């Protein structure tokens, strides 16, 4: 597991998409400021019947599933021992880190009394019966683990850096102020480099135990995200309310994780004009349909057992959403079963996108669409509420874009086929 499987993507940081994303981020964060000044009601349509809106449903429940790329890839690489996927892990972990970090941030925007959150660290306040307690603690722990997992990338970069940008900046600052630049700054920078070089091999030794923790924690809290709704037996529609919610959420996050790893790779290769990692991707695509088949069988078996199959095909409001979710997942999996389609980047992209959409819709169905608190309650997110979510997602993409350009995250173009293809794109550029 060498660190030279990766490279920094050398390109301009200030691109048009950077500006667009930055504007969206700023709008989102301004509205977050409004929320803290004027209360949640000022920006959102949440109400006492629908106390959880789009922030919990998308940013937390769905966003963390989409951020499960790092989790799914870690299982594949370290547990199922497919080391040749190792070059893909850093970008997967980076997106997971953003996904989880920002899910945690969204929670702080969503909860009414965030200053009391320290109670999670006070044992006398712990409430082990609550799935929410488990989710909160686990997500905090996993975010820390993700940071640690990503640390080697930062250390490698620190070790090799010449501090060029910083040197230039310092020179400029000091010359502006008309002062000599003191020597000791250079010494200090060297110290940071030394520290990084000292820390890296030590971290490498224990890293595997941190990685495994990074597999255990999502297994726990992703299932607990399903357990959260177990209490709402009178509110969640019977199409989705089942004792198998934790199991369904767990499998759901795994196939979303693998599918998102495919989508990420395709999109970033396309955006950064790199050759597609077709061989690796079709390998991953082989696993997904097995997971979805297990998931779909549990869904159907459970519906049959509870006598809800009739409700599933009754074509009422709930049935339509259920069928849509079901068909998206099943359709995407059918495509992936075909060996030929798995060789094509286009079909890989389409099928992975279908599965992610279907899997995400499942979570929306459980948290929002299938949730009915009783007569007279309605919810549809307000514009400001949506813009906050958009802002957070924009910030996520923005961060990814910038970080792959300053740190060695993307896989190195090393195999011959990739080198050839790389030359072609280089010529074009």
């Amino acid at each position, binding site marked *: 597991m060498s660190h030279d499987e990766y490279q920094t993507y050398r390109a301009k940081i200030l691109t048009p998409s950077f500006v667009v994303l930055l504007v969206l981020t700023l709008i989102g964060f301004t509205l977050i400021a409004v929320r803290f000044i004027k209360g949640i*009601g*000022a920006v959102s349509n949440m109400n*006492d019947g629908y106390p959880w809106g789009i922030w919990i449903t998308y940013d937390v429940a769905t966003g963390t599933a989409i951020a499960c790329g790092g989790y799914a890839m870690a299982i594949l690489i370290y547990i199922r021992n497919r080391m040749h996927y190792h070059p893909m892990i850093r970008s997967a972990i980076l997106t997971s880190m953003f996904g989880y970090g920002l899910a945690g941030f969204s929670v702080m925007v969503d909860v*009414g009394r965030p200053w009391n959150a320290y109670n999670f660290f006070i044992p006398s306040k712990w409430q082990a019966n609550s*799935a929410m307690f488990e989710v909160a603690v686990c997500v905090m722990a996993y975010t820390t683990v993700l940071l640690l997992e990503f640390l080697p990338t930062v250390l490698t970069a620190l070790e090799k850096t010449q501090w060029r940008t910083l040197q230039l900046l310092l020179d400029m600052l000091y010359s502006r102020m008309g002062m000599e630049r003191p020597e000791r700054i250079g010494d200090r920078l060297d110290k940071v480099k030394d520290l990084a070089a000292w820390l890296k091999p030590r971290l490498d030794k224990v890293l595997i135990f941190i990685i495994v923790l990074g597999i*255990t924690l999502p297994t726990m809290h992703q*299932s607990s995200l399903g357990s959260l709704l177990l209490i709402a037996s009178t509110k969640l529609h019977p199409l989705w309310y089942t004792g198998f919610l934790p199991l369904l959420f767990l499998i759901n996050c795994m196939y979303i994780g693998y599918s998102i790893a495919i989508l990420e790779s395709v999109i970033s290769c396309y955006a950064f004009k790199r050759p597609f990692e077709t061989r690796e991707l079709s390998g991953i695509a082989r696993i997904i349909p097995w997971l979805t088949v297990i998931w779909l069988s549990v869904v159907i078996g459970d519906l049959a057992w509870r006598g809800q199959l009739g409700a599933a095909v009754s074509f009422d409001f709930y049935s339509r959403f259920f069928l849509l979710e079901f068909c998206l997942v099943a359709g995407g999996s059918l495509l992936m079963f075909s060996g030929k389609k798995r060789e094509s980047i286009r079909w890989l992209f389409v099928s992975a996108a279908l599965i992610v959409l279907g899997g995400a819709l499942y979570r929306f169905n459980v948290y929002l669409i299938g949730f009915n608190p009783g007569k007279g309650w309605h919810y549809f997110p307000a514009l400001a509420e949506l813009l906050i979510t958009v802002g957070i997602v924009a910030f996520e993409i923005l961060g990814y874009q910038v970080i792959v350009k300053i740190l060695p995250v993307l896989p190195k173009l090393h195999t011959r086929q990739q080198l050839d293809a790389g030359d072609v794109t280089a010529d074009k550029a």
Partner: protein
Amino acid sequence: MGKPSRRQFLKLIGATGAALVVGRGSASATEEHQVNNDTLGMLYDATKCVGCKACMSACKRVNSDFGSLSYEQAPFDSDGLWDAPEDLSGSTRTLIKLFKESEKEWSYVKYSCMHCQKPSCVSVCPVSAMTRDKMTGIVDYNKNTCIGCRYCQVACAFNIPKFQWEKAIPQIVKCDLCKNTNMVKKGITACAETCPTGAIMFGKRKDLLEEAKKRLAENPGRYVNHIYGEKELGGTNHLYLSAMPFKKLGLPVLKHEAPAEFSEKIQHTIYKGFIAPVALYSTLCFIAVKNKKKERADDVEEQDKSGSERKKAETEHGEDVE
């Protein structure tokens, strides 16, 4: 390559699944919850209620200072003299509503916290801000620990806890049987004390049940033959008698099992003694470390090989992709 580890992985999943199924069966036998009839509650008799709303105004008067409760203001009433909330809210803990089916058939109904024997809100609160007092049975809320996640609102089958959406420093608001206000001074809830027709009776659950049964027996034609709250969701301390079907009064038809029993059973089974997570972690560590050692051994071998052989090995590697 990788075959043994895959088998191990599948075995592990199978074992976890089996443990879940077995655990679920055994847990159900042990964790039966007991109804405590010595706890405090109220009996609301809808046939005696005249809809004067004196209970509502008493509740607001007594509890206004506690928990930063404010009078609700209609937009045209800037002085805050007139208060007619449509529903329980961040400033309303109890509410009288009228259900009118026809000119002759109608009924009032009072909403407030049901003070369940096995409350969902207490079961789901992640930081123990919702608590149920074992002695009194009062389900209470502490704003100083609450993080405002609103899981209690999602959990409550009666939609009782309300959130102050319009406030920058919001809190949950719900009836606490005047625990810190009227109860301390007078030993009775403000609404029950004020009610001019005796529609609200305050007392121990067993006395309330006895009284309700007596009324049902003495006036069989007057009531629907059911004490709402006696069995619903494992029993509530707020009980109802009515001449109209309870469902029409906005009191949902509910099972006798408390939802928290079921959800806690599953949560406890998975996290019993924290054994499953620890077992999962150690098994995964074992596999991962073994894989890593194998990888290192392969690396050493590969270094000995010449370039062409190495390429060949790589293509074989590629075919092994699941």
